[in-house]
């Protein structure tokens, strides 16, 4: 990263934004798939029943909470790894 010129940084930034959007999309579709798979198993009705809707809500809430906690641990590890590395990265 440090070796990039200003214009390279800008191009990199703009790609990162697109990538972030893509990441968000991927997270969204994984979340939908995971909570659907975990909460919906009854196909005698066409729409979600209350029990399923509640399960999906808790699933999303728990996923977000878990994701945040894992994110914290991950950042600590990244920071630790950069300090250990001989080149300072």
């Amino acid at each position, binding site marked *: 990263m440090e070796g990039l010129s200003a214009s390279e940084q800008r191009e990199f930034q703009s790609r990162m934004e697109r990538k972030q959007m893509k990441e968000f999309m991927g997270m969204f579709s994984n979340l939908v798939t995971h909570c659907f798979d975990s909460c919906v198993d009854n*196909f005698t009705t066409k729409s979600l029943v209350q029990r399923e809707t509640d399960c999906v809500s808790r699933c999303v809430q728990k996923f977000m909470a878990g994701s945040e906690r894992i994110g914290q641990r991950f950042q600590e590890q990244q920071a630790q790894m950069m300090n250990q590395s001989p080149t300072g990265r």
Partner: protein
Amino acid sequence: MSMFGLGRPQPSSAEKIAAAEQEMDLITDMFNKLQQACMKKCIPREYREGEINKAEGVCIDRCASKFFDVQMKVSELLQAEAAAKGGAAGGGFGIGGM
């Protein structure tokens, strides 16, 4: 991502194409996920016959409908969370109502 369009008066060609492409990608991804999820829920893996029987067909229809409901519900919850956190950013996900 450049909320309100400030700072970038006009999106470039490349940016507009990238945005249209991303919308297509999301739709394709969602279709693939729906298909995987509902084949898994509705089609037994023994493959004793090649046709979709009546029960399997009905299951697929309801499964697709419920998958769609979950999609809407998750979208709603994420938007509520973003609104609670980021204030003005609510609705910023905004790809075709998702």
